[in-house]
């Protein structure tokens, strides 16, 4: 069955001097969150999120679910997984790189088995598939 998720954004004014708000999402979990071009495209975030940070959050969450599922299917369910995703954005070029870093506590599984499961999750998670156009998706395990 198809799953739909919705988000609403308002923008006022110009790109450089104006600003936007992620007003609400279907679940109600996010918003309102302010977004501006400066906070997206400069090193300093000033506490504001950006499309790239939201993509990082989506990818880290999707990867973790896929990895948890894969480990459980293999008979070694994890007790804890920690994943971080870092998205690189070059204004004018686009999203150039995602780095996934994962560590976990998986009873009964060695490092090689964990790495193999993580590689599988990286290839198969729906967000990885959707981001297949990113030039480089890198996985760091441990």
């Amino acid at each position, binding site marked *: 069955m198809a799953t739909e998720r919705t*988000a609403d954004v308002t923008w006022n004014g110009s790109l450089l001097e104006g600003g936007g708000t992620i007003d609400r999402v279907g679940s109600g979990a996010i918003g309102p969150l302010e977004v501006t071009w400066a906070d997206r*495209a400069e090193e300093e975030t000033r506490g504001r999120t950006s499309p790239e940070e939201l993509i990082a959050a989506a990818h880290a969450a999707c990867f973790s679910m896929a990895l948890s599922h894969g480990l459980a299917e293999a008979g070694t369910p994890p007790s804890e997984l920690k994943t971080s995703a870092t998205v690189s*954005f070059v204004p004018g070029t686009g999203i150039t790189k995602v780095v996934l870093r994962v560590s976990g506590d998986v009873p009964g599984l060695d490092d090689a088995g964990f790495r193999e499961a993580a590689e599988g999750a990286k290839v198969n998670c729906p967000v990885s598939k959707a981001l297949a156009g990113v030039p480089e998706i890198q996985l760091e395990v441990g």
Partner: protein
Amino acid sequence: MPRIVREAEIAWEGTVSRGAGTVRAVSSGAFALPTTIASRVGDPEGKTSPEELLAAAHASCFVTSLGSELARAGTPPERLDVRCVITMDEVGELGHRIVSSEIHAHGTAPGCDQAGFAQAAEAADAGCPFSALIKASATVTVEAHLDEGGDDGD
């Protein structure tokens, strides 16, 4: 232009079906949100999901592209409203895939007519970095119209 880096993390405890995770915005600190597989594929029950985060990313990415295109055309916007709906579905043997992202955009831009707004929306879709990426697995559709008379949001 410099390379901009944004980071988020998630800690997941327990199995995928009964466990739960908390996803945090590391770079900005703007959010820390619970998520579960049940709320991802079923009723959200107030919890976010990867697809909802992508919807927020695409809407906020597209809105800046649309604003830029309108400004480039000499009709900068006063206000833009963008809704994004991301759909995940099971696609035969491929399993779950993000299959579509629908953008609905409307707003006010003094001096711009419906045709100009539609043209700017098309150019925004072509230029938005997220639109370009997600086309690897999903169909992106854009529906855009200028609000008639005034700056009323909806």
